[in-house]
């Protein structure tokens, strides 16, 4: 009787554990994907290429 109960609980635990971990990974991947999409949109506008600025900064006087 107890043996059956523990066996059933074990199967439920493994099933739920794997389910939760899978859902968690899916959520993480979706958030990451959304971040990448947003990054692509923002990239052109926001990436400041300092090396480009550098080319015009030879006469720059630092402090």
């Amino acid at each position, binding site marked *: 009787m107890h*043996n059956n109960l523990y066996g059933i609980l074990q199967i439920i635990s493994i099933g739920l554990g794997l389910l939760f971990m899978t859902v968690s*990974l899916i959520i993480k991947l979706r*958030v990451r994907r*959304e971040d990448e999409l947003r*990054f692509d949109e923002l990239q052109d506008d*926001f990436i400041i290429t*300092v090396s480009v600025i550098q080319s*015009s900064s030879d006469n720059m006087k*630092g*402090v």
Partner: protein
Amino acid sequence: MQVLAGLLIDDRYRVDKKLGEGGMSSVYKVFDTRLKKIWAMKFIEVNDISGGMTEASVLRNLEHPLLPRVVDVGHFETGEGRYIYIVMDFIEGRNLEEVLREEGSISEEQCVFWIMDILEALKYLHSQSPPVIYRDMKPGNIMLTRDGKLKIIDFGIAREKKVGRVSDTVALGTRGYAAPEQFGGRGQSDERTDIYCLGATMYHLVTGKSPCEPPYRMYPVRHVKPGLSENIEKIILIATKSDPNKRFQSCQEMIDAIKSKDMAVDGKRILRLYISNILMLLGILLLISTIPLGLFSRRAIADEYDYYLNQSVITSAYSDRIGLITEAIRKNPSKLTGYEYLADLFAEDKIFSESEEMLILRLWEDCGSSRLTKDDRSILSYRIGMLYWLYYSYGRDSELNIKQSISWFQEASKSQIEEYRNIANIYYLIGIFHRDVADKTDIEGDVYLEYFANLEKLISLVTSDHYKNYEEQIEIASFVEKSIESYYEDFIYAGVVEERVANLLESIKNI
């Protein structure tokens, strides 16, 4: 710039060690011999004294908790050059660049807290008439005092905004933090220049990545550090736009943006990540929980197994005993004890019936042959072989018994356990003799010699101290006695001396 340490300036300031150095200036720790106080003194090497008083004139009129207090300004000449000096508060602590180097990136909350203070200071500077543009905001120019307060230092390139000027005449700033317009030809630096520098500073603070080091790029901060909020990412992105018109237009606008609901932390994203983490944690906990559950399960199986076997001992009805032992075996088919209980029960009445044979063969096929370890399997094979040899169709055909047992002893003779391997091998060889040789007439003498030798070994093994089963000893002794009786002449003819036969019979009588 020449070494100034050790000089006494204006018969008042004794120059001590150097605190820092820039392109056009150096900062020294000095001792005020008149007030007996330590100050920081900035020396700016200039060609023209009046033209080099920018920083001094900027700082002299300012008063803000985040700005250093200027207590004296002057100039002097040495043989090697002309210098302007500015005497300021000596600020003990570390600059934020040192903090970053020693402790890594700053938490978002701490960064926002500091930036709000700095924005207030910049707002104060920009509110001057004309506005003062700091132009050199970077972690290295922000001091963190020992009591946790910030001070903005180094006004070496600060300038007053010139009304009507279209661009800066000289490119000044720190590469990486400087706004595009500071490089000349892209418009005059204004309040929005400080916004850009502050954005680049925020980038460095929260990511730990300096914009003036490779790869010389500022990515959206969450690409570098995913744990940051969307709010701070947007603030930095807007503050560091190349086009000043797309940046925050004033410090107040940036302050409002940091505080506003529109720029609030991306709650949905954080909630999803939070749920994801919780689910991952739960999943791991559930998987870990299967370990104790498995142990409980095994313990429960062991308890039930023992219970059924114990009940089989105290129960009197034969069919009930069979049922209990079978149930125990089905609970844990990988344990040998249940099978041994069954073999013992079958041997009790000295009859290994056909129904018993069917039952044990079914259990063997269902689980015994696959679930038992190799050693346990050979022990069970030996037990089944003995059931056939001694009790199968008892009293009807002993030759059939022996032949039925051969395959089981053959299996048992593969045992790793020497005790079982030896005796099973002897039973197997004796069985082979009875199957292949016994009925034939033209047998070579060596075969009988070998058979007799096996009978001797068998008696020797069953009479040894560790052979406990007395009933089996009796049955085997009877078998050997009958064999001697049947093949006595063949043994003598094959060369077995009578003395050996007599000795074997004597051993049998002693059992």
